[in-house]
């Protein structure tokens, strides 16, 4: 598959129908880097691996149902009527940037006493002027059993979160059908410092 691009033929179905463009391709250079290859200490300094094994027998509620509404973090909720199950393509205005709860991690403990349980969101951490990432941890009986980035690690994601995009979507109905069970998120690279800041906030929120 890595050599697939040697094949010079073939076009992407539907491309011509969805796109039109000026034939004068710009000649612009790319310099995007990894933002810090080697920014970390030598590999020998890597922190020891903390391994946790969770089985249903020793933690019956190891996998609580993900409930986005259980968090206090502001989540964009689109109240426009056009975002029902069969929304039409509309030009929606660009929403304001999500408010960042400065220095106040949000908590969502499932139980109010005993060892911490449930999912905890870290702050939307910023590294310098730019760079955002949000970490969510899952706590079972006071032990971190999972860490996810952007709070969507293999959990049920409500369709309303999907349809709340500022970007007009041509296939919102199809997205709603697909939206559950998202395993991973593709996005621009974030920095480890932003990641760790958000993770620390989530750990504090869990009271660990």
């Amino acid at each position: 598959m890595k050599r697939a691009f040697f094949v010079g033929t073939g076009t992407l179905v539907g491309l011509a129908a969805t796109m039109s463009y000026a034939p004068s391709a710009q000649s612009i250079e790319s310099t995007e880097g990894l933002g810090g290859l080697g920014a970390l200490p030598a590999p020998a300094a890597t922190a020891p691996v903390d391994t946790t094994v969770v089985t249903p027998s020793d933690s019956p509620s190891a996998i609580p149902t993900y409930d986005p509404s259980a968090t206090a973090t502001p989540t964009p909720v689109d109240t426009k009527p056009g975002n029902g199950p069969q929304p039409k393509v509309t030009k929606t205005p660009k929403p304001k940037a999500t408010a960042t709860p400065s220095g106040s991690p949000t908590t969502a403990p499932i139980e109010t006493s005993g060892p911490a349980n449930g999912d905890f969101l870290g702050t939307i951490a910023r590294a310098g002027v730019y760079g955002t990432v949000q970490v969510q941890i899952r706590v079972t009986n006071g032990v971190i059993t999972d860490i996810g980035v952007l709070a969507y690690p293999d959990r049920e994601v409500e369709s309303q979160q999907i349809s709340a995009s500022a970007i007009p979507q041509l296939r919102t109905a199809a997205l709603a059908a697909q939206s559950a069970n998202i395993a991973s998120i593709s996005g621009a690279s974030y920095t480890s410092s932003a990641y760790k800041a958000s993770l620390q906030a989530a750990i504090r929120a869990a009271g660990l």
Partner: protein
Amino acid sequence: MSTLIRDIHGGWDRAVHQEEVWGTVVTFDVRDQHLDEGVLAAIDESAAFLHQVDRWFSTYRIDTPITALRMGFADLSQMPPVVQDVLHRCELVKALTHGTFDPWAVDGGVDPSGFVKGWAADVAADKLVAQGYTNVAVNAAGDITCRGEQSEGQPWVIGIRHPEDIHTIVATTEVFESAIATSGEYERGKHIVNPLTGRRDMALRSATVVGPDGGMADALATALLIAGLPGVSWFAALPGWSGYLIEGETAHFFGPAFGPLSSAEMAEATEQELVQC
């Protein structure tokens, strides 16, 4: 930190590991009907490769082959085979993108970083497959390589992040054996430069590509972010690739990973979305 979780969706086990490397975080996600605890050692071995990649390709370290090449202390023939191979692949992508992706056109000497992250995700995933863990997703800070299945008979479901709203996914794609890469400046600011003009204005807010090769995906996403819709002129020639481009308030998508438009959607899109193209 590694976690082995029993009996998740569909009764499958899942192992998750997060490795801090390259100044960011790489997530391993392994699934199967039953995972033995050896999976954690296999993940560690794959993660160790990422650090080896750093020892080959870091431009921030003085002791790497790529730094020696950049500073003129060594020439290409003295590079380790893996470095030569990656640079050769970069040449191909440069040609495919009509020079929009050009690791040689930067200050300080050749810098293949825009290719290496996605390439390394591919290799790391394939190392786990070779160990018998055939259902793997490696997320290298947003650039993802998928192998096998997410659960029994089901594809991996990958979301594409909204450029600004961290809580919103603008699209999903379902893949089995694919790489997904997104390029944007919303995380790290205007770090992409056009050396020909000195300008940092990108044509798009976000560019996501899906295709068979991680390194290419990494590079193609950046190239499309720079080139914008005109870049589709060369991107369209690549069989098996799909794109999801966010320009202003408009999402443009195409290719098998995002499906063809229905005729009704097409009519509406033609009216409302494509006028400005």
